[in-house]
């Protein structure tokens, strides 16, 4: 059924985030919220129920002042491909109602809000806490409704939502390309809102498999790593940090294991 992409290898959109550049300003979060109609509650200080598709984590090296170091780490959805990019991401396989899907054409993990019935199993499955539940009705009081973008439908209470790599931007870019008789997108034609907004230019977005795209080269950087690689989730978001403690914080290691210990070779799932 899903064989239509066979004659042409699919894209694998992904991100490389240079943590050395990130200043922790939070633009990416705000840009994402504005782009994707993410609502604001009266009180968003309880971060356990605050929806931020991309969340900037504050990492410290846990040393006392003044040896303390901080690294900010923006965490969008990782759009895990699972072993061999077969689409066996932690969340997609568990959703009982097929409300989240792996798109083999782009490598993007989608979320169908009107299909989701809110069992939260996908949240239990995602080790990155990238999925958010709408505990409350979304509210845009007064004229704030005018800020809503028609490209992204507002989510209702009781469903799970997450970063889509601004998939609607991909669709718009593709529509435009088709009109112009093209079947492929230029690198700059499809960029996520967070990538565009970042004042540091810390986020780079593109097709990880396309050697002409910046991300394809950047992900090969010796300081590049991904979060929780050992779980074999195969994320599409890479990070670069020149600091060893940051790279080590990207995954779990037993006490004496060196950073970058490879996951077990056997593909024991998928």
């Amino acid at each position, binding site marked *: 059924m899903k064989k239509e992409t066979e004659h042409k290898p699919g894209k694998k959109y992904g991100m490389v985030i240079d943590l050395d*550049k990130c*200043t*922790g*300003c*939070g*633009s990416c*979060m*705000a*840009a994402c*919220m*504005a*782009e994707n*109609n993410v609502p*604001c509650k*009266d*009180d*968003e*200080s*309880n*971060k356990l129920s*605050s929806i*931020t598709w991309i969340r*900037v984590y*504050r990492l*410290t090296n*846990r*040393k*006392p*002042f*003044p040896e*303390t*170091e*901080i*690294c*900010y780490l923006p965490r969008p959805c990782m759009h895990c491909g699972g072993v061999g990019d077969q689409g066996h991401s932690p969340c997609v396989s568990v959703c009982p109602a097929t409300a989240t899907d792996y798109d083999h054409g782009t490598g993007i993990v989608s979320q169908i809000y*009107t299909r989701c019935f809110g069992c939260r199993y996908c949240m239990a499955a995602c080790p990155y806490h990238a999925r958010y539940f709408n505990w409350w*009705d*979304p509210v*845009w*009081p*007064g*004229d*704030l*409704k*005018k*800020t*809503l*973008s*028609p490209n992204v*439908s*507002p989510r*209702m*209470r009781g469903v799970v939502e997450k970063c889509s790599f601004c998939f609607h931007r991909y669709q718009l870019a593709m529509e435009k390309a088709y009109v112009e008789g093209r079947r492929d997108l230029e690198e700059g034609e499809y960029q996520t*809102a967070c990538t*565009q*907004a*970042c*004042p*540091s*230019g810390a986020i780079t977005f593109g097709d990880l498999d396309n050697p002409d795209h910046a991300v394809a080269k950047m992900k090969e950087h010796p300081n590049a790593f991904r979060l929780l690689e050992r779980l074999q989730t195969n994320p599409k978001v890479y990070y670069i940090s020149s600091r060893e403690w940051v790279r080590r914080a990207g995954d779990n290691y037993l006490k004496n294991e060196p950073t970058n210990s490879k996951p077990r070779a056997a593909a024991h799932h998928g």
Partner: protein
Amino acid sequence: MKIDRRSFLALGLGAAAGTAFTPLPWKLTDDASIWTQNWRWLPLPEDGDVTYETTACTLCPGGCGIRVRKVKDRIVKIEGLPEHPVNQGGICALGISGTQILYGGSRVTSPMRRSGDRGKNEWTRITWDEALAEVKAQINALVDADKADTIACITGSDRGTVPLLFKRLLAVLGSPNFMTTATMEDSYRAVFRKMHGLKGPVDVRFDFENTGFVLSFGSGLIEGWGSPLRMIRAANVWKANKTPMIQVEQRLSNTAAFSGGLLAVNPGTEADLALGLCHAIISGNLHQAGSVSGFAEFANLLKQKYSVDTVATKTGLKATAIVDLARKFANPASRSVAVCGRGKGTTAGSMREFMAVHALNILAGRVNAPGGVFAVPAPDDIAWAGDTVMTSAISGKTRIDEAGTGAYTLADSLLNRIPSGIVEKGESSIGLLFVSEANPVYTLSGTKNVRKAFKKIPYIVSFATCLDDTTAYADLILPNHSYLERYQDVPVRAGLSKPLVNLTKPVSAPVYDTQNVGDTVISIAKSLEGSVAEAFPWENYEDCLAKTLGGRWETLKEKGFVEGEANPVALGNVILPSEMPDIPAISGDGNLPLILLPKDSMRLWGDAVADPPFALKIVPDTELKGTETVVEVSPKTAVAQGLEDGKEAVLTTTLKSVTVKVAVSDGIMDGVVAIPRGLGRSSAEKYLDDKGVNVCELMEPQEDKVSGFDAVIGTRASLKRA
């Protein structure tokens, strides 16, 4: 037909079974799912043609170019303008949240007259005609009583046509009392005047793009200091070039963390460190020769009071570290620059610190040198007929704040002196106050006194776009369009290396019954008739802009910004101080065990503009939790004061006692309490209203003996378990 129990049961069962074969249950389940997918209270964004329009952001002084995405006539998103020299496509969280100011709940939707007590933000709607008539009556009353010079005006900036229209209105009425809120740029100007003998308007500019070594004295270089986006880009250039960044601070701020070069000195000893560095430079004979007066006295002062060893003890640093740093800094190959202005630089700060840091730059030859700090003339491209006549007419009159006269020759305006003046005298020296694009009740320290003083001012007219702490004290609001609905030229200071003028454009039709403040000022002037009206010969504000900007008007309309060139002013003779002013930057009761320091960030904005919902949403829970401010202390301080992470505590300064929450963090010096700036607003909007505490309420102001500005950067405090 007889209905017995059996047939009744059979009927019931049959009916139940029968229904299952009708479309009814399927229809109902289908309806249920459709209904849950389209709740009527779930807004359905209206679709339409998408267009992009470019304009400029004015929410902070940074001067970014933005483009808005419109769906039909709605602005749905604000993005950075890729071709703008300041931000080059990037945008900060506040800028993105601009739509929530445009359409937000705190907008003043029509002219309003105060109906409640001052401080309550309670209003009655009136018409524009009524409102303008009221202003006219107030002005005429003062003019008739020969008290026109008690008319005062507070604006957020003194640049561009709108502030100058206010200034002109005051001048033509005979009042010199045009005031602006003071920032670190005003302190820099004062330093140029003090240490270079410069007169008149002079601006500070930093050539950060070519700097090779950055020494920052508590400036939040990537946390909103100067032009925030330009600074973030510059900092990334430094990082890429491995340019050393040294951050002198008591806390691992984002700037300190990003720099990787935190130099933790004892609070309030930043100036001492700068002087110690000066001493090390002089004693190492590393200073640059130049035309300097008072060098010997300065060297002697350093030797006597600020020797490396003395400073080492005072700051808590190692003497060798100071000498080492001085050597690196003074090396001409370093292309170094020392920067000051605490946090975002939205407060003036202490002259002692500015002078010390500037002396350091002077000794290292970093003033008016590539990669260093520049003194440039402020742009004077807005010239209207009769300016000189008016200026000379009021030049003899004393300003209420005494700026520019007597002991206060270094400052152009001293807003901070107004509240204490009024409170001390017991009556208001201001008869009528205009407030535009400023929020002094929120941003001046010692809030209690400020409120008291504002209550005493007989009549306050606000030109605010949104309700805030200051509108609460106004008698009349003549609401301005938001920056997305109006034309306005916005010359950018913010330490940019080149002069820049942005133009905001009406990218949205007015959402409410508001009016461009430029038009409002012109119509007020016209209503006064006679010479006042004659001084405003324009049809409306747009006409004024077109005529004033001349050839640049079309460029601005098309491109959105004009960049210029500025040649540094000749510095002439450098005057090094023979004595350093002794103003404690830390105010308050010395018996209180801790030092409270405000902290700034790119997520929480402490100046005139309050955090809109998106920006507020990303404020970490280590700064705001529920409705309480969270203060940061070190683990040792927590133990010493009996505090626990996440628990409540009572924060006390000489001015106020408030309940806060405690966040214990590794990234802060012992004995210091860091408190986020930007909370505790009465913004009349549910998201931010009454959340946390305004830092200014806790900070006792400290008048700088040199400049007259408020020098306070911190205050003594205690923090006890609640």
